[in-house]
């Protein structure tokens, strides 16, 4: 995939693009984007994959208007218009899944389908959630992966002082801006999820310690016709530890859409 930038009004964002076929827009999670992951490489075999870094994150700008999740949702509506995309398969992971829902309740005019991978955004009373803001990077990996080997591998790749890394600090601050309070959700979102009128699939790791898998059915009940796929032996970071399963789930869902 190739790196490039797009400037939408006053905000330049960095993007990874590759592949050909129907357009697929992938929205990354709180840890940031900008890196081609194996599930993306696979999806790029069948789709024209577009994976921007959100405003506030990574190599993208930090615009003055970057105050809350709604700002990011409206930005992506502008983004779809700017690239004149239609029939888009929108796939969002965690924080990106939340953004995807916020986009879709506003307009599905340019969307063909929605795939939500363990999305944040909806608070379900009584269901367990973790607090990544209270965790060290090491703890976040241990909580995020079901497979210890993936967690330890990720930890071993951490730079010595990751807390002093510019991009890490930038992503964390952007995540806080969007998700500190209310913690990782928008209390008003459930009121409008019924507006989503494109085929929706919710994919969740069975052993997610950040947003427990029970959220999948709860969110599915709020989106007309939404289906649920629970991936066994997977944690929150199933896009890494179950890359093949995730890509297959996206393919199965979007080909029907």
């Amino acid at each position, binding site marked *: 995939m190739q790196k490039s930038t797009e400037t939408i009004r006053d905000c330049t964002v960095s993007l990874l693009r590759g592949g050909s076929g129907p357009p697929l827009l992938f929205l990354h999670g709180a840890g940031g984007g900008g890196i081609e992951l194996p599930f993306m490489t696979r999806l790029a075999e069948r789709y024209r994959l577009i994976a921007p870094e959100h405003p506030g994150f990574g190599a993208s700008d930090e615009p003055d208007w970057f105050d809350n999740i709604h700002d990011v949702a409206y930005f992506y509506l502008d983004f779809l218009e700017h690239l004149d995309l239609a029939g888009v398969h929108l796939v969002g992971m965690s924080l990106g899944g939340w953004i995807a829902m916020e986009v879709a309740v506003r307009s599905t005019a340019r969307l063909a389908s929605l795939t939500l991978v363990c999305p944040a955004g909806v608070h379900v009373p009584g269901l367990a959630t973790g607090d990544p803001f209270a965790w060290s990077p090491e703890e976040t990996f241990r909580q995020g992966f079901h497979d210890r080997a993936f967690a330890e591998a990720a930890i071993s790749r951490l730079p010595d002082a990751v*807390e*002093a890394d510019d991009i890490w600090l930038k992503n964390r*601050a952007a995540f806080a801006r969007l998700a*500190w*309070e209310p913690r990782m959700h928008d209390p008003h979102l459930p009121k409008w999820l019924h507006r989503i009128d494109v085929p929706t699939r919710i994919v969740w790791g069975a052993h997610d310690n950040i947003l427990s898998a029970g959220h999948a059915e709860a969110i599915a009940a709020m989106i007309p016709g939404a289906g649920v796929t629970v991936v066994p032996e997977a944690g929150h970071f199933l896009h890494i530890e179950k890359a093949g399963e995730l890509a297959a789930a996206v393919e199965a869902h979007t080909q029907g859409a």
Partner: protein
Amino acid sequence: MKVFFFHLMPYAEVDLDEVRKVGTSWVRLSNRLYDPEKGAMLYERYLNQLERAEELGFDGIGVNEHHQTAYGMMPSPIVMASALARRTHRVKICILGSALPLRQHPLTLAEEHAMIDTLTRGRLIAGFVRGIGAEYHVFGVDPTTSHERFHEAHDLIVRAWTETGPFEFSGKHYRHRYVNTWPRPYQRPHPPIWIPSQGSQETIDFASHPDRRYTYLQTFSPAAAVKKYLDLYRARAQQYGYTALDSQLGWAVPVYVGQTDESAIAEARPHFENFRNCFARMPIEFLLPPGYTSRESMKRVAAAKKSMFGDLAIEPAMEMGMMVCGSAATVRDRLVDYYGEMGFGNLIALLQFGTLPAELTDANMDRFAAGVMPALQALGERPAGQRRVA
């Protein structure tokens, strides 16, 4: 020099093994470890100590604000300052400080401070802080907006104190259709505002600005850092076109005075080390939540992580000037020397720290008041020639 007796009011009865097990006394340490009976006993003891400081001749007494921690049992310094307002008659009462951004309605702070200022006929010194990182977890205030909220709340409070109302205040974080506080503060134009800080250029630029000239307090830092930041304040004032007075600068530091140097260290050691290594301990995720301070400052702290988050014994702490300890003569000479180097016109002495028990705190206060304080209070504004600007 003005000398203040400052209290953190730690929950000194806490099970320290539990604190070590949890790794912090902040936010995560369950309040099942808190015993209301012991809490009441400690409040009484600590308030008695603060009240006695007036009899001993201190210029002022100070309290502060911390939330959900055994480090300090004063979630509201307003309550403690109010309790002290009617039991003292001469000393300044310092709130060092109130965490402005944590408030949903900082206008209540303008009101509460005005009340205390009126109750004491103008003995209040206000302190404005942002609150420490852990407290952004407590209140769910987005730490990336901390600076903005601080400045906006500051503007709102100062305007509420100095402009007659009703007027409208319209900010990004705070909006009030009507600002018109009753009572207005007793002091004019308003109670002095002090800025306690761990040191940052942004804070110094703000405090030293000629429109404000707020007293800047460097808190619990090595002496070299204290000197660096106080010098920065003076240099900034010169750039602004005026010469800062020593009274615009202060240092907050733990102090322990014993019979001899040896007995002082022996007596203070476990309690200081508990203060530093148990009560004050918190993980970096709590100390520095995302966006709490500039990216460059975050990087500096993260890079120094190992030294900052390790245990510190009393000797190196004394060596670095993070605490002053010894016989009365030693402590006096040390502080007079520091004054000569740094020129802080206000000493904020923490004479109870960590688990320091009542008898040792009382003895510390007595020895400090008799053998150290008079020499400090005799120090006037240093002649201009002795002021060095970095």
